């Protein structure tokens, strides 16, 4: 028969766990709202920029005129994958989904005879990939404020430009959890080098209608635009990932709160039954004691 005191302790500990998870859920919900706003308000800049870039690239008919960093190298051997994870846990399958997906991607690339390098964003990815034998070129952590997110995006951009120029990498892709809705996030790849096709063709018809004049000339403008575009794409993926993280945490904490509630109900039931059993037992003892006399 379970001990009454033990049960009581158990109930109170589950209750305090429930308090914590429900508080975390609320915090995540309010952070999610902010992160979503940020992701949405950054979209205007990103869209305009990719429009400008596509009208520039679309204007240059001969793709050989475009810089390597836009079109990619012909014989690419080394790919870099930037993995956007979270800094903290307790967000359900957020990180493990990502890592599982990345694993598949990496073996795919290796199957094509390419070697893979990794760049991690967030503590979870850096501690996970430390244990693997993959080549980690850089790790970024503590993306806890918006300024920091921008700063990290800038550092990542500088790093990939440097690596590309030194021929240490030929391709760059970025992996992040795309924010679909508050209950669904999906791991998404985006290619930075070469520039993904949808980026150049998306607005092409529109871009061709207006023939722009460029100042300074196209090449100089491209030189300015390409890094800027990297920064924006990276920043955007960081923001998407942070919105997804909060959404994932919100759902998983909601589940945890509900589970704790169920557990408390079950435990309370057991507690009451046990208590009643004790009373009955005591009564039987007293009655049979009285009968014996």
């Amino acid at each position, binding site marked *: 028969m379970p001990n009454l005191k033990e049960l009581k302790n158990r109930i109170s500990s589950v209750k305090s766990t429930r308090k914590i998870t429900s508080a975390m859920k609320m915090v995540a919900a309010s952070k999610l709202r902010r992160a979503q706003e*940020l992701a949405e308000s950054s979209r205007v*800049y990103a869209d305009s920029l990719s429009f400008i870039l596509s009208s520039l690239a679309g204007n240059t008919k001969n793709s050989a005129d475009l810089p390597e960093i836009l079109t990619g190298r012909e014989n690419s051997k080394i790919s870099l994958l930037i993995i956007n994870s979270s800094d903290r846990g307790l967000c359900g399958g957020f990180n493990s989904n990502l890592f599982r997906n990345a694993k598949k991607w990496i073996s795919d690339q290796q199957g094509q005879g390419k070697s893979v390098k990794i760049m991690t964003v967030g503590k979870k990815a850096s501690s996970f990939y430390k244990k693997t034998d993959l080549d980690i070129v850089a790790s970024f952590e503590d993306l806890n404020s918006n300024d920091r997110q*921008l700063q990290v995006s800038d550092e990542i951009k500088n790093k990939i430009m440097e690596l590309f120029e030194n021929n240490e990498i030929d391709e760059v892709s970025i992996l992040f959890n795309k924010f679909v809705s508050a209950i669904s996030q999906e791991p998404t790849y985006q290619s930075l080098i070469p520039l993904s096709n949808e980026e150049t063709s998306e607005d092409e018809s529109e871009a061709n209608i207006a023939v722009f*004049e460029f*100042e300074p000339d196209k090449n100089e403008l491209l030189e*300015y635009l390409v*890094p800027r575009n990297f920064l924006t794409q990276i920043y955007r993926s960081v923001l998407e990932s942070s919105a997804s993280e909060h959404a994932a945490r919100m759902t998983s904490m909601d589940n945890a709160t509900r589970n704790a509630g169920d557990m408390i109900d079950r435990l309370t039931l057991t507690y009451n039954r046990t208590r009643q059993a004790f009373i009955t037992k005591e009564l039987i003892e007293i009655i049979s004691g009285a009968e014996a006399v």
Partner: protein
Amino acid sequence: MINLKVVSPQKVIFEKEVEMAVLPGAEGDFAAMPNHSPFISSLRPGQMAIMSSNKVDESFFVSGGLVMLKEKVCEVLVDQIEPLSDVNSSNYQQSKTYQELEGNETALGTFEQVVNNPPYK
């Protein structure tokens, strides 16, 4: 009137109808007015002015960026923008360093040069 939209990587800073905006283009200042031919240019650090009936309504310090000009729309993608009155030599220095890091060496000039050289007469 032309629709002037100023956007930073984080957010839309403002969007309004203006008569004319003077922008510090990489190869010289230019004015954005309705029916300008489609035009894309990068910006050097300098002053941006919003004008109506030949006088300046507002002026800003822009640390660099891009501008896309269409018939009725002028989209300015800035790195940083402040009302000119909020700029002092220390935060100017900051954005100057930032520009240099970016490898953008277009006519930076000193703080005094930028502030005391309005792009309009």
